[in-house]
């Protein structure tokens, strides 16, 4: 099963920290930057939920 390993979110999106580390930013550009860095560090895929939230998911079964 795939697993969310981190979240990059806009402050205004209303996302609150829960099971995984959550990184807040003020604007989309810096959120993208955080998500980019996290993707490279975590070997995870970034997916945009279209509500000011990017989740970083490690897909299982797929090659890294």
């Amino acid at each position, binding site marked *: 099963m795939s697993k969310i390993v981190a979240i990059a979110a806009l402050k205004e999106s209303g996302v609150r920290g829960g099971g995984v580390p959550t990184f807040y930013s003020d604007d989309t550009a810096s959120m993208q930057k955080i*998500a*980019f860095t996290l*993707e490279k560090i975590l*070997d995870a895929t*970034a997916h*945009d939920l279209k509500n000011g939230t*990017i989740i970083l998911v490690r897909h299982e079964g797929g*090659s*890294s």
Partner: protein
Amino acid sequence: MIEEFMKSPYTVGVIIGIVFGIISRLSMLRTDYRQYPANPHGRIVHISLGVIAASLGAVAVPALLEKEYTAVTFLTLAAQQFREVRSMERETLTRIDSLELVPRGVTYIEGIAIAFEGRNYLAITTALLSTLGSVLFTWYWGVAAGLLALVLTHFFMSGKTVSQLAHIEQAEVVMKGPDLYVNDIYIMNIGLEDTREKIARHSLGFILHPKTPDFKVTLANLGQRQAILHDLSTILGVYRDSGEPSLVPQAKIDLNDGRLAVFILPQDRDPAKAMQVIGQVPVLENAVRMPSESKAQKGEAKSEG
């Protein structure tokens, strides 16, 4: 001593059998785009086994003619040996696969392994037929039988390719916000702007329309899809590195009509070449499904007609 050796009625036959057996194995041992077996040692393993296979096939004929029926048990030993070839190939390829940027997939590996086993049996058969021909008649009948067996061998070993069973067309790669489509088929969600830009610059998309209902099922097989992606990435290169899981090539089907959308990021961005490559991908034996052969399907057709 050589003269004495040649006096034996079977010697010429056995030699012809072995020669044709080896020729048949060599002709099936081509290093093609799959780059396999590419290294000299891999080839030596297969050539040696081919020589053994040819000898067994050739020697079986005189043994039977001399009423040495127990000699046939040697053939079972050979079968055992060649089954081992299969597991050897499987093991090697599976291990290598874990370090491929775009893996072959188990279905493709199993297909290659079976082919390697099968080729040895074909070498045995070729040797057997040519020895039989030259022992029963004369040496040139042996040669004729050998040539015929070679032709048959190639007939048996050439499988179908994707181009025979599907119509391939180039399609547009569309980004709708973070969602990636090939024409109208959804592929995946891309979160990063940077990745979206890379995809816009480097990607190619294709749609495969299966020509028969049977091939629709085969094309839906994950192993068959992975084989297409692997071959494309091997031949055209892949714009990807480790730690870039979002740049992975994908193939998704349209659940409504069975079309397959192929999304790739090649180094060599040449759509014509890519279409040719997709067309050449072998239809994997283990992915082939024939639902149309089912009695249920035929019964349905009868009640309709």
